[in-house]
């Protein structure tokens, strides 16, 4: 075939769709260095490429780029660092927020605990005032003749119970607690509650009712912090109950 006759075949040749005979004709022309055929082939390649662009646009997944580049041994280092940096920033922020949240939670728990302690202190003071304000309350003192503390008062009330106010009572020590005892006349000590002392003293209340007429002594010993059924040490406070 002449060059003119071949001109209709170049697009199909470039697509690899010619029958063997036609393909061989074009191959022969191209091998001979036929300039006209080379130009027609270039034109056919260009038209084919233009037709390839007319397909509906489909957006590939963003990760495909990484996969393609990884396939030829290329890694997107810049963006990888950016991603790692962003992830690290997110992690740091998350940790910071977590610490902040934990601190806030702890502060809230502390505040609640303080509120509970303040309320308990208020209740005890209210109870103590009730003792002091009631004309039926009978006082008893202890340690007045001692050179060193503790000193203080015991207030007895048949309905309210026993109020102990001790000044300068040192802390009981690690693993220890003060335990109050009510000792009937001629009887055995009965446990009347555990308490701790701050450096400025202590207030302890045994809620009534209580038979004050038979009571002989109110005493305090140092005991294990879980308390004891009977005193295990010498009393550091012993307040004789005056005859009522």
């Amino acid at each position: 075939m002449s060059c003119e006759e071949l001109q209709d075949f170049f697009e199909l040749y470039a697509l690899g769709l010619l029958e063997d005979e036609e393909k061989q004709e074009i191959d022969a022309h191209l091998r001979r260095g036929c300039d006209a055929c080379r130009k027609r082939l270039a034109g056919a390649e260009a038209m084919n490429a233009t037709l390839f662009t007319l397909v509906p646009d489909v957006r590939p997944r963003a990760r495909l780029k990484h996969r393609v580049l990884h396939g030829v041994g290329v890694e997107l280092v810049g963006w990888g660092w950016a991603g790692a940096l962003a992830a690290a920033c997110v992690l740091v922020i998350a940790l910071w927020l977590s610490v902040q949240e934990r601190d806030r939670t702890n502060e809230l728990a502390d505040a609640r605990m303080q509120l509970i302690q303040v309320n308990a202190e208020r209740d005890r003071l209210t109870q103590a005032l009730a003792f002091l304000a009631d004309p039926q309350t009978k006082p008893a003192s202890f340690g007045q003749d001692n050179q060193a503390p503790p000193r203080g008062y015991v207030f007895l009330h048949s309905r309210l119970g026993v109020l102990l106010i001790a000044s300068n009572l040192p802390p009981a020590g690690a693993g220890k607690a003060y335990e109050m005892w009510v000792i009937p006349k001629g009887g055995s000590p009965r446990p009347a509650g555990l308490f701790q002392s701050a450096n400025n003293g202590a207030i302890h209340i045994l809620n009534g009712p209580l038979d004050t007429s038979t009571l002989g002594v109110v005493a305090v010993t140092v005991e294990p912090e879980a308390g004891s059924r009977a005193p295990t040490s010498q009393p550091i406070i012993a307040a004789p109950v005056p005859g009522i």
Partner: protein
Amino acid sequence: MFPGKLWVIAVAGWLLAAILRTAADSDLIGRLKARDHKAMAELYDRFGRIAFSLIFRVVRNSAVAEDLIQETFLRVWNRVHSFDPQRGALGPWVLTVARNRAIDYLRSVDGRMRSGALELDRLEDPALFNGVEDSALAADRARRLKIALEKLSPNQKAVIELAYYEGLSQTEMAEKLNQPLGTVKTWTRSALKILREELAEAAIA
């Protein structure tokens, strides 16, 4: 169309655009040959989406298209050393490789023309793209070709679709369409002529 000095400005603009486009292609090919990793990312940015669209049009399956786009760019990466940046245009070559990978897959699935794989391989030789114009992928050409496609008869359009996107030879088209081979050849020849002439007119205009 362009009165007076506007002719000069239009021609100068066209020349400048062509020079810049050629320089950009040439620079990219040079960096690809030098194994510049950023150049490969740039190549994907320029042709990845259209190549994926083309492959998807042929295979109609996203997962397969992703495999084939990876194969396409691997081939380009491995063969770019023989591409002549002064004589060939990168885009048409990349799209041809993409289309051929898709057609080769289609043929392997259909169990037809295994020997055609070698032929497709040969047709991806960068030397065959010497002399292909940089403007092959220009939007204006695509627009004109799209209009020209609308002028084709349904039969002409069918044979173009079968050739470009299904990789059927004229004999295979005749079997598929249940038409005489001569008829299919006439449809194909006349369709390609219409498209070719439309582009020729565009070049003159």
